[in-house]
């Protein structure tokens, strides 16, 4: 069985490669279709001599045929080099930005993810336990409303309510400006725990509340539905009744039911993580969160090919890794899965 899990992980891991390749190709094509290029974005006006423009383009490697550009960057990435930024500022390694921005997004992602799973589980189980009642209906309405919420609008409503109106929580950034926090992992909550800096800890948590709830609530809708339906399904199954008939304690039976209902939810978790990228862009923009999302949006303005390609591929690699982990957990939890 151990050999089985090992080869399963390897094969499943290899599947990340084509995914990334396809994504890179799509991003590459879209960036070249977009009007303008990084050099024009830097120069800002077309009133400069064409030969000078050509010279600048050649310096950035943009004069080469597209397929050469495509493979150049691909081979760079394979070596772990994401190239340099092409505009504002020019020539700074993209990796430097990713190192800085990625932990911010990861932190937001982890917290939003937790919020969404918790909200989804609680609402789903409540709905299932009260199947067919008004409580069930209201949980269903919650799931639809949450799922269709527009992140910037919902974010701004929370900002207005808790930031402007009640002055309870900060509405932008990751931490209060005056706080000095030693950077270890880049995850502020973790860093502040590691260094015992409790002032930074509370500040980081307070900054996380609104963006995590915004993103987490939107993603929770899908869980509510899935958990409810699975739980209703599992609770009606014979083995639940036979647990009761064998005199197993009530709370234990609920736990076993939850475990069974949770299996399909794990699959959804893997998928939801990918959606987090899109959600993170909107959430980060709304809350001025200095993460990958705002980084990509900034860079699109400058048509910074290298930075965008690098950021997207890096994020895709990470999402692929997470979904690999999710699949492995699934396989370990459900004895019926064959690998």
């Amino acid at each position, binding site marked *: 069985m151990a050999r089985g899990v090992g080869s399963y992980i390897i094969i499943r891991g290899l599947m990340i490669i084509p995914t990334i390749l396809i994504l890179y190709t799509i991003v590459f094509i879209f960036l070249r279709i977009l009007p303008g290029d990084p050099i024009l974005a830097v120069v800002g006006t077309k009133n400069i001599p064409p030969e000078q423009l050509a010279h600048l383009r050649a310096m950035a490697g943009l004069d080469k045929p597209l397929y050469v550009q495509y493979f150049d960057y691909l081979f760079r990435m394979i070596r772990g080099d994401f190239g340099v930024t092409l505009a504002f500022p020019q020539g700074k390694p993209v990796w430097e930005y990713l190192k800085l921005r990625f932990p911010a997004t990861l932190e937001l992602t982890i917290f939003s993810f937790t919020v969404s799973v918790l909200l989804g589980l609680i609402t789903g189980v409540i709905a299932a336990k009260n199947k067919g009642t008004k409580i069930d209906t209201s949980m269903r309405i919650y799931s639809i409303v949450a799922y269709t919420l527009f992140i910037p609008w919902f974010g701004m409503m929370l900002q207005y309510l808790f930031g402007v109106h009640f002055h309870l929580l900060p509405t932008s950034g990751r931490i209060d400006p005056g706080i000095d926090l030693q950077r270890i992992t880049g995850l502020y909550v973790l860093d502040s725990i590691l260094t015992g800096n409790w002032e930074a800890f509370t500040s980081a948590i307070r900054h996380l509340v609104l963006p995590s709830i915004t993103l987490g609530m939107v993603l929770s809708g899908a869980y509510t539905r899935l958990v409810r339906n699975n739980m209703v399904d599992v609770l009606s199954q014979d*083995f639940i009744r036979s647990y009761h*008939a064998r*005199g197993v304690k009530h709370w234990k039976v609920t736990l076993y039911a939850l475990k069974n209902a949770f299996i399909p939810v794990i699959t959804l978790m893997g998928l939801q993580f990918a959606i987090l990228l899109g959600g993170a862009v909107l959430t980060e923009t709304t809350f001025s969160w200095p993460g990958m999302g705002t980084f990509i949006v900034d860079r699109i303005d400058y048509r910074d090919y290298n930075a965008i390609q690098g950021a997207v591929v890096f994020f895709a690699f990470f999402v692929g890794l997470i979904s690999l982990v999710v699949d492995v957990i699934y396989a370990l939890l459900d004895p019926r899965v064959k690998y």
Partner: protein
Amino acid sequence: MKTIIDVKNLSIYYYTLAGIVRAVENVSFSIGEKEWVSFVGESGSGKSTVAYAILNLVPSPGKIVNGKVVFNGKNLLELDEEEMRQIRGKEISMVFQDPMTSLDPLRKVGDQIAEVLIEHGAEKEEAFERAKELLRMVNLPEDRINYYPHQLSGGQRQRVAIAMAMAFHPKLLIADEPTTALDVIVQDSIMDLIATLKSKGTSIFFVTHDISLAAERSDKIAVMYAGKLVEFGKVEQILDNPLHPYTKALLESVPDVWSERKVSAIPGYPPDLRNPPKGCRFHPRCTIFKIKKELHGICNELETELIEVEKDHFVACHLYRRR
């Protein structure tokens, strides 16, 4: 004979959105020590619902609206949840119809067997030792404790279910169509296991829709129709001298390869239990009622009740009323 369980005037209704389904109405019977009683009847006749009621596990939206289930001198329907839990799996155990779905797919067979013992007070180690022993008793190798349910066949899973039911030498085993989902050969071995349990002193409440299967091993047969107990008696009494028109029709509907007799179906359908027929619930399909005009105004008006026609032989039919 000592009575193990005594059910009196049991009525169970399902409160559905479409109306109140009178699934079980005024059912009374008792099962003696070491006695095997088979409940037969078509789907929806209420036999499984009665089985669940004994453990007070009638599935929602069902409710026990009236009646008593007396076991060891106590009315089980009045016990609190914890007292009832102590009885379930220990003094009264149950085997379900579909072995494919009656075990938790995510947990090892051994863990599930041992849990029954642990929940009723056993130590962990002795519980696993006993789990192995129980598997041997149902003719499965000990190493099956490390198997997941999906690695076993249907028959093997039903053996596991019976092993769990045997954990504490229960006074009563409720078997809800335990062989319906299995093929005939496996069916027989499961019936043997239940018989072994009986020989060790357990009474059997056996639910089936197969009257010939019931006839093979039972001491008594109870015939249910549309939520009512229509006939109850010893196997010989029911088979050789069926009294109720429904029992007679049921016996005629069983194919017999050795005889020239034609198999006959019972005309019509069982009634809608949201709005059961007045009087005897079987009268719309009863051939005797159709022929005998003098029964009109009786069978379709008056409620039936169980009458003891001969010793231990009860029937709920107006034909046998004491005039």
